[in-house]
């Protein structure tokens, strides 16, 4: 966390979903929690798992797996929640992202981020790009695009 000042790289919190690595801008992460069963919201889409009590605030949980169109899975012992700040026109809101497991905090230089090729997936728009690191690929997620439409009455 020491040299975020170089400007040419950004830090990402990475996590695992469906055996692949994803990352979100660490500046958007408020905290990390273990999963606990949420209160389901009536008539919410399947990727919205419900709400939890976060120190007195009502915070919705979004399953990243199902949001990305991947097969659902019951929460296990490593299931975690990344609490992020979602910016939108109406103001900032706090949302929990359910992930299979936490991974790491990595510094990603701008020049290793490649634009994501279009593969016609369910939520391409939420990918900011692919970071090509020496040992792995990390899909960088745009938190705001990922959470677009959350809480909109259908």
């Amino acid at each position, binding site marked *: 966390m020491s040299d975020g000042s170089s400007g040419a790289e950004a830090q990402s919190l990475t996590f695992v979903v469906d055996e692949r690595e994803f990352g979100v801008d660490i500046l958007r992460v408020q905290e990390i929690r273990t999963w606990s069963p949420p209160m389901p*919201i*009536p*008539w919410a889409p399947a990727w919205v798992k419900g*709400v939890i009590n976060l120190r*007195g*605030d*009502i915070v919705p949980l979004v399953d990243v797996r199902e949001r990305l169109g991947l097969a659902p899975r019951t929460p296990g012992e490593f299931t975690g929640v990344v609490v992020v700040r979602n910016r939108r026109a109406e103001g900032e809101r706090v*949302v929990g992202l359910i992930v299979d497991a936490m991974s790491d905090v990595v510094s990603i230089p701008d020049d290793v981020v490649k634009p994501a090729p279009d593969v016609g997936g369910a939520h391409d728009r939420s990918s900011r790009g692919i970071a090509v690191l020496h040992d792995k690929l990390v899909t960088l997620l745009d938190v705001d695009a990922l959470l677009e439409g959350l*809480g909109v009455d259908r």
Partner: protein
Amino acid sequence: MSAAALQERLLSTFLEESREGLGRAEAALLRMGTGAGVDEIDDVFRAIHSLKGSAGSMGQPGVAQVAHALESHLDGLRRDRRQPDKGLLKVMLQAIDGLRALLDDVAAKRPVDLALAASLAQRVERVDAGGPPQPAGWVLRFTPPEDLLSRGLDPLRLARAVAELGPTRVRADLSRLPDFESWTGAVSMVSWEFFVDGSVGQKNLEDVFDWVDGGWSLERKAASDAAAPTASPVARAAAAAAPAAPETATIRIPIPRIDQLMNMVGELVITQAMLGELDDDGPIDAARAARLREGLSLLARNTHALQDGVMRLRSVPLSVVFGRLPRLVHDVAAQLKKEVQLAMTGETTELDKTVIERLGDPLTHLVRNCLDHGLEHPAERAAAGKTPSGMVSVSAWQKGGEVFVEVADDGRGLDYDKIRRKALERGLLPVGAAPSPEVLTRLIFEPGFSTAEAVTDLSGRGVGMDVVMSNVKQLGGDISVTSTPGQGTRFLLRLPVSLAIIDGQLVRVGGHTWVIPLLSILETVQPEASQLARMGAGQVMRLRDQLIPSVPLAPLLGMPAERPGSLMVVVEGDGTPVGLLVDELLGQQQVVVKSLETNYGSVRGVQGATILGDGSVSFILEVGGLTRAAGLSQEAA
């Protein structure tokens, strides 16, 4: 605090105080208009005077200008202990509307409409102040010849001489002043207009200016100058001022309330200290357990007192809303050419600030409705053996955790025949139906339902009784109507004291706990098989002499039912009772309403979330929305 934040705070205080002051001034003016004591003028003067002062220091010249113009008139009235006449009263009320529009501009950080301010000020200045000694006046225009000063004539002395003759106002025209560089003390570039009281003789005025060769003219001012043709900007101001229910971000609290709160916090600290003494590693024996229990019960009491205290901070008296009504009644009665007396009681009843803010529109609509539809014209009233002037009463009182607001008139009452005809026309009733008065009464809350013969200016605003009803329902309240033909109509609003904490019934559905507001529950029953009948996909339950639709709650919430619900919570849906089958009835408790919209959005049938004693989240159901979604509304008729 940064300079910007300080400025922001000053501005919001300025806006709040100014709006309050205008409200006070308006109310006092209206009381004077209905013949109350002339002493009210002091209130009006003080309010406008301090508005002028604070507008000046906040850098709001437009507001200050209008306030100044008003102040001059008020000062005159105050000095002479005189009532304003109808014309002056009207212009002053319009100026107050205009000032509100200007303040709205300031609040919205829009550029203040200076042209509007100028025309308002001009209009107020021009209006004839009225009163006995002033049938008309003189206008003396004086443009001094350039050599005036070198001839040793002092314009100031002339002005003083005019002022000695009688009440005089002077306006200086500075438009001919040259640039600073070309300024010379030897030439007079200023011209003046003297408005002199009509009681002053023409000869006396002419004598003053006898020494001045030319450059002045004297004319008689007609009394009708008051009706200057500047109606359009004022009308615009009035229109702009009408809908805006400005959102005030601040609240003013009497110091004793804060002191009370401090005391409670003091108690809490003592309790905490007492409990803290027990917090060592010693064993919990009987004596310590007793002290612990005592401490916990103290803590519960402190918490409860603190909760009440904080809730009371959010309480504001209903007078905030009631204060608008005299003006409304005054204006609407004049427009409808009806005579109306307004009686208000219970203005000091307190309600949560949010409830008060959202109550304004429904309440003014109900009052307007009474005037428009309820009360008859004086001739019609006289023919029915009533006093020519109608009576509208607005009263409020608190009972338990609810506040009641009643709007009643002594007019013609609901015309059930007309409602029935209209309902048949619109297909709201089956042909040949003979519904009860209760059912007909409910129809007036249907969207787009109006029995008004013609769409008047008043009822053509697109706000109907349906909006009134839904506003009140959103606040967790309800409206009931009673009407006696020929004797009047009475609307009774039932409102919760607070939106922040509600009494709830906890129920279990689909393996989760949900909260149903106690206010919307009629009763809970365990129906026997003999009380139930199938009807299509649904069920009907016989409850005493009534058949009510009943549905399992689980599917309405998109949840699987754990087991066939055997307990029924009978709730007041949209006007009709509906039975909701739940899996289990849990306890009743007060719950703190938390916003679901902050981090998520609005959910149909849910009015908010809450956190239960065990830390888990539960949803507070909004029964009207639920039953509407299930298509269970309005079926009982």
